């Protein structure tokens, strides 16, 4: 039987790394996959070099709509590394709270989308409703649902108002019972077990070889987390656990993310309750010449920034390495040998922005047939339905 090639991509309007997957399929089975990136040059690094250190934070914040804390966090740490300075305690706690809030909403967003891909639209609706509550918390604390504009080299821009904290804590508490119910529903669901267990396995060795990061590596038994390995912010002052599971299949990745949401909520609550008094900003005036690096454990893995200063008020060089760059190539080890209907959720399981599937087409030797993102989702949802029917669940 003739092999077909399924191109997915290449233009990706939302994420910082437009990706182009070429799936070579033999019937239903994927026999080869290739990833190409670099189709969309946004010139963010150059733009950052044209702004002052203070203004760059806002450009960096807009690299990704969901990681609008992770990039500024890593960037400000890189700039502080040049001088070097320690930010005030209160600023550390504020930064940690915002970073964890982002992790909660990012994981919930991914969970909702994963539910949608699998045909669990109830999960999708419920999870996104819960996410609204977290976004409200962020609005109460920082003034906006996304793009918090709170990071600044040397501290934070806005202080938390003590009067708002009880309301924020109440809102965070209000989602925990529903999240618990959801956790049970997802982790104990027999259909999800049948659908997700054992597919897209990323072994521990492969995770290490591909340098996978974040939940992708932690699901494969690699205990790797910047927050634990090289603590920064308030992460060494609050009590939390790193979630590590062993199997590395898609189900474990779901489990890691769901459990991490609870850990993040734990960190957020501890930070808000033990907010130390004091200054929030060092008011840095000059950045001396030098180099600095900053890392932050973003929801998808370690974000890494390098900044070089030549003594002026603008960065001389700014380099960004986002976690998806490391996580994407793992599809070489996870997707090959699986079916197209599973490829959707396996590729989604590293948590890239999935708009790329909207631009997918199937090319065959006999003629052209167009597969859109909708078709991929339909294929994936149909497989879940088949498993349900087989198990006698309506």
């Amino acid at each position, binding site marked *: 039987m003739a092999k077909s090639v399924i191109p997915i991509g290449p233009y990706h309007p939302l994420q910082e790394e437009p990706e182009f997957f070429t799936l070579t399929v033999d019937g239903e089975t994927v026999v080869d996959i290739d990833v190409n990136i670099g189709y969309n040059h946004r010139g963010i690094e150059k733009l950052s070099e044209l702004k002052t250190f203070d*203004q760059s*934070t*806002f450009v960096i914040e807009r690299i990704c709509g969901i990681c609008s804390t992770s990039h500024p966090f890593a960037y400000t740490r890189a700039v502080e590394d040049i001088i070097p300075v320690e930010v005030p305690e209160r600023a550390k706690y504020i930064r940690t709270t915002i970073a964890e809030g982002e992790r909660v909403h990012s994981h919930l967003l991914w969970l909702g989308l994963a539910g949608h891909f699998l045909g669990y639209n109830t999960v999708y609706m419920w999870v996104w409703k819960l996410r609204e509550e977290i976004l409200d918390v962020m609005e109460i604390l920082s003034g*906006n649902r996304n*793009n918090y*504009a709170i990071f600044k080299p040397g501290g934070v*821009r806005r202080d938390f108002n003590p009067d708002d904290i009880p309301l924020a804590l109440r809102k965070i508490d209000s989602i925990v019972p529903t999240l618990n119910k959801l956790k049970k529903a997802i982790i104990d669901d027999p259909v999800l077990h049948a659908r997700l267990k054992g597919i897209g396995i990323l072994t521990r060795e492969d995770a290490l070889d591909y340098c996978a990061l974040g939940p992708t590596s932690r699901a494969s038994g690699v205990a790797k987390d910047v927050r634990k390995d090289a603590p920064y912010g308030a992460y060494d002052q609050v009590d939390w656990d790193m979630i590590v599971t062993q199997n590395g299949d898609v189900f474990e990745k779901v489990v890691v993310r769901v459990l991490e949401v609870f850990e993040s909520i734990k960190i957020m609550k501890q930070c808000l309750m033990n907010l130390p008094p004091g200054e929030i900003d060092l008011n840095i005036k000059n950045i001396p010449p030098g180099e600095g690096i900053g890392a932050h454990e973003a929801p998808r893995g370690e974000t890494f920034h390098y900044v070089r200063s030549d003594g002026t008020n603008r960065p001389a060089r700014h380099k960004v390495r986002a976690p998806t760059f490391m996580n994407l190539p793992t599809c070489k080890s996870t997707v090959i040998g699986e079916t197209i209907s599973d490829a959707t959720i396996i590729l989604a399981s590293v948590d890239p922005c999935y708009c790329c599937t909207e631009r997918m087409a199937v090319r065959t030797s006999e003629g052209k047939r167009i597969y859109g993102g909708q078709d991929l989702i339909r294929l994936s949802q149909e497989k879940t339905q088949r498993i349900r029917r087989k198990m006698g669940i309506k």
Partner: protein
Amino acid sequence: MKLPKVRELSEAVKALLSKPYTSKFPKKPHQPYHNFRGQPIYNQEKCVGCLACEEVCPVEAIAHEDQVDPANPMRIMIHYTDTCIFCGSCEAACIADNEGIKLSTEWDLAFFDRKASQETIEKELQLCEICGQPIACKDHLKWIAEKIGELTYSSPTLYLTRLKSLGIVDENLISASRDYGRSDRVKILCARCRRESTLSTSTK
């Protein structure tokens, strides 16, 4: 026969009795939280027209236009809502106790005409008495004079502005015609003309 599940039944009854999660938007506009970062709004009274907000704005959403008309010199401060990212840098950098421009909770900023997205205020401009170029807004010079106290009297530009605003010196007083001499020093001057009058050897 399959019995209805009690949990699902109670869920259905609850859903019937509870009100909808979504709000009736056009009827009941969304109320943001009090520290929501919305449209920045100029305060005509407090703003001194110093352009600090324009300097720090990361997206260049703030601009100014100087109308150098001797009869009515004006500085127009323009804020472009369509470019603004509502980061609050302008408020943080405002020299007038952070009250010259302030973020409001206004969020419904849709417009049909792009011109409607511009917010402007006018500040009275002080022109150099010799060359007629703008020096700063009158309010800005007054603000500096108040900040530095008695040191104001080391600079004729500052103390003349202050005395005029206090009504001690006639506001409509127009100094004698330009001569680039030493006598020019007691005038409201821009930096260039002050230097030239200082270096001048003329004793007119």
